[in-house]
């Protein structure tokens, strides 16, 4: 009799594991089932790359994304971030090729496709610059729950407020996290590895 109970318990446990483990794995891979396969951006946009190609929200869906928002009139934070991303891509090795990495200009008035092409020649060539009209950039950024704005100064020039972190979006459109300029480099590298594995 105890022997029979043991067998029953074993069968019950095995059955539970057989159902739960794949379900958990599936959920882990796909996030919330309701948003599985969802696009990361809630609004449509059409931008142009520094190579002159048209890039829309559709092209940015279904692949692991690294998005940094900045502008070329930004002497401190933006070159720091682009140099760091360039370094991380090299350190990541072949895994980096699974990532789609973008420098999205929050100052499209001054950052034309040509300006971005020139500027980005100083960084890893896997970083693609994106610009366009302000409305399209705004739709991309607000769709991620972030924002940017122009700050005019007394001398008639202006600077841009922009999201500080670099956004990491999994291939399934969910946010893995951001690269924080203040976290250790090893943490940033680990995040990029996980992101590459998501694609």
């Amino acid at each position, binding site marked *: 009799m105890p022997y029979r109970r043991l067998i029953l318990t074993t069968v019950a446990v095995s059955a539970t594991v057989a159902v739960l483990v794949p379900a958990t794995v599936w959920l882990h891979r796909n996030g919330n089932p309701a948003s599985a396969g969802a696009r990361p951006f809630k609004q449509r946009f059409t931008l142009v790359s520094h190579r002159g190609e048209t890039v829309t929200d559709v092209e940015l869906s279904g692949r692991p994304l690294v998005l940094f928002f900045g502008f*070329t*009139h930004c002497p*401190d934070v933006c070159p720091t971030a682009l*140099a760091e991303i360039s370094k991380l891509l090299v350190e990541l090795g072949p895994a980096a090729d699974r990532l789609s990495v973008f420098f999205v200009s929050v100052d499209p008035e001054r950052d034309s496709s040509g300006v971005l092409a020139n500027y*980005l020649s*100083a960084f890893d060539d896997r970083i693609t610059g994106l610009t366009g009209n302000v409305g399209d950039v705004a739709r991309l950024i607000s769709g991620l729950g972030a924002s940017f704005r122009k*700050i005019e100064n007394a001398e008639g020039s202006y600077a841009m407020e*922009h*999201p*500080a972190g670099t956004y990491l979006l999994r291939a399934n459109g969910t946010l893995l996290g951001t690269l924080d300029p203040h976290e250790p480099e090893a943490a940033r590298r680990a995040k990029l590895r996980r992101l590459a594995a998501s694609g």
Partner: protein
Amino acid sequence: MKAHRLWATLALLGFVSSVPVMAPAHEFRVGDIRIVHPWARATPPGARVGAGYLTVVNKGLIDDQLIEASSSTIASIEIHATETGGGISRMRAIPGGLPIPADGRVSLEPGGTHLMLVEPTKPLVQGELVRSTLRFKRAGTVEVEFEVDAIGAPKSASEHD
């Protein structure tokens, strides 16, 4: 004889290469103010702005202020702070100059306070020097040279203090 000269040359090289360790750091002085290792980052092609960094040490007993920086090869130099908060990065000019407290030091570093070098007449190239004049409220003016480091160079790569 030849071997002899070779050894002499090697010995001399060894001596020369050890000199920078003993030589004073790249720094400039005016009154009680020391400006330690002014450096700038090389600019990416087409960039209209660059950034300069330095450490100011005030050995005096009276507060001072960095009120102006200028250069014949840069249209204007603005003292800026980078602020990050609530996931947003912003730059703002520091009005009225940068306070340098008595018996204190202020470091301008990547990601914080910096000199924004607006419209250099030519790109800033790694290894070159940019001559500039700094004006302090009490100590007066001093000529300095910013050493140009790599694009995006972190502070650790250039700290010689």
